């Protein structure tokens, strides 16, 4: 028989949620993959011999990621006030610092690539679709609309980032790949939280599903438009670009939000 003290999944539902949303759980989760990787990667990984256009393309892509992570940081922080109970507030605090760390490692990567003023560069290279997505997300957060804001943040935005980072990591240089893989590990936790929290709320209130579908219909074009731009910058052939969109749509559907 399972020992509840040893087996997390043997805990009663309330205690299970309390545990997996805690600072202690977060600390145990991140210790393994952050130790020894200051600013997201091991020291000593070799920087490729970039040509100027290659470096410039990567800088633009990372600037887009920084916009995504800044909105995720502001969104997660802003959601804490709207969260319905202490464990969800604590989880969102762990997510807030994860998003802040993602922003920090990406800004640091920009500096490694020779960008002298990352904040100015990020602002200069931001895409219109991302700004519109950010405005909608922060409007949901600002209005204290827990369901819509959590869906936009932890399902739509996190699924989009997960799909992009995953695909980019496959072809990235060793330093960027390690940075992205560390971010992906955090995002799995964030996606799981969104799926579980919203899943429970939909089970109690099935009408919520229709409402979230409408939010998704509004946000999907902004996500897909943003992908199009990022993939073009990555040099992905047009025929392959739709694959990323499919990755994203499949991820959202896998989470039960078809």
């Amino acid at each position: 028989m399972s020992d509840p003290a040893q087996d997390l999944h043997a805990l009663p539902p309330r205690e299970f949620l309390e545990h997996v949303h805690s600072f202690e759980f977060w600390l145990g989760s991140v210790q393994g993959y952050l130790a020894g990787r200051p600013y997201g990667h091991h020291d000593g990984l070799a920087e490729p011999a970039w040509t100027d256009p290659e470096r410039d393309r990567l800088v633009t892509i990372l600037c887009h990621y920084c916009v995504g992570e800044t909105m995720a940081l502001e969104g997660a922080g802003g959601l804490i006030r709207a969260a319905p109970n202490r464990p969800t507030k604590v989880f969102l605090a762990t997510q807030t610092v994860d998003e802040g760390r993602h922003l920090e490692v990406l800004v640091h990567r920009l500096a490694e690539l020779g960008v002298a003023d990352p904040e100015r560069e990020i602002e200069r290279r931001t895409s219109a679709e991302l700004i519109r997505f950010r405005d909608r997300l922060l409007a949901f957060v600002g209005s204290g609309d827990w369901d819509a804001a959590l869906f936009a943040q932890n399902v739509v935005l996190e699924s989009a980032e997960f799909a992009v980072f995953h695909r980019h990591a496959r072809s990235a240089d060793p330093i960027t790949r390690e940075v992205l893989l560390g971010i992906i590990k955090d995002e799995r936790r964030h996606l799981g939280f969104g799926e579980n929290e919203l899943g429970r709320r939909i089970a109690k209130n099935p009408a919520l599903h229709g409402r979230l579908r409408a939010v998704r219909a509004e946000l999907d074009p902004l996500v897909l438009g943003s992908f199009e731009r990022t993939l073009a910058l990555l040099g992905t052939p047009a025929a392959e670009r739709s694959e990323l969109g499919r990755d994203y749509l499949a991820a959202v559907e896998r989470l039960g939000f078809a």
Partner: protein
Amino acid sequence: MKDFLDGYDIQYWLESAPQGYLKNTEYGHAPGEREPAVLLEDPVLREQAIGVTVQLVVGERCALAASSGLINAAPDEGSKRFLATQTLDEARHVEVFTHRLLDLGVKQNELEDVIRERANPNLVKFAELLLEKVDRKDFVAGVVGQNVILEGMAFNVFEMMHAANREANAKFAHTLSGTIADERRHVGFGENRIGSLIKEHPERKADVEKLQREMSYWMLATFGAQLRQGPSPEEVKQRLAARGVAPSEGAATWQGVRLGDASPAELESALGGTILKEFKIRLERIGIEYQTPVAP
């Protein structure tokens, strides 16, 4: 300013807190540490411990709401990232002090009622005032209220509580020492960031001073009310002796006051004196003149 914020980045925080002084702890203390049996057995001492811990939870909930809310109001990306670390620090404090309430025997389903019923009204008033500034996205007022007044003043209280518990309750003392280490960072950020903002916006000096006067009142009123509650030093000694707890060899002292013997008035005086002395120095560094609040 860039250089100052470099010392407050998430990498530094990860290395100093989660991978530093929090390593090998659980809920802020060493694994296996327990509340002293006498605290759980004596109803008066237990009630006193619950009352104090409730104020810690209320203060930390306020700090969590304020620091997370200020991320969106921060004028630069470095401050946003620092506030992300502060948000998680405050959430951890909420978690460890809530856990202490459960360790003291408060039932999970009674937790919110206990917190609501026993929250000090002065502290609740302070929280309302601070969160009103945060809701208006007033970064300067929010950071002054949160990182300079709330954390700056609470810092001394935590130090006093740490001195009182170092020998008597190692579990609670360890929890407090991690909290104190976090707050030292938060106060440092507040001083540096607000100092630079006041230099950039001298027109804010007068309303920040007014805010300090108003907010300090509620904090000092909270400390005074808490110190005047609970059993007298003599009663505490009698209750400990009745359960066979011998007085510790070295009496706990803080700022020259023997904590086990001091009356509430003596404690209030020592605490008030220390808080105000350090608080005035801190405000001077920021470029703010201390405004004396009306006596609580």
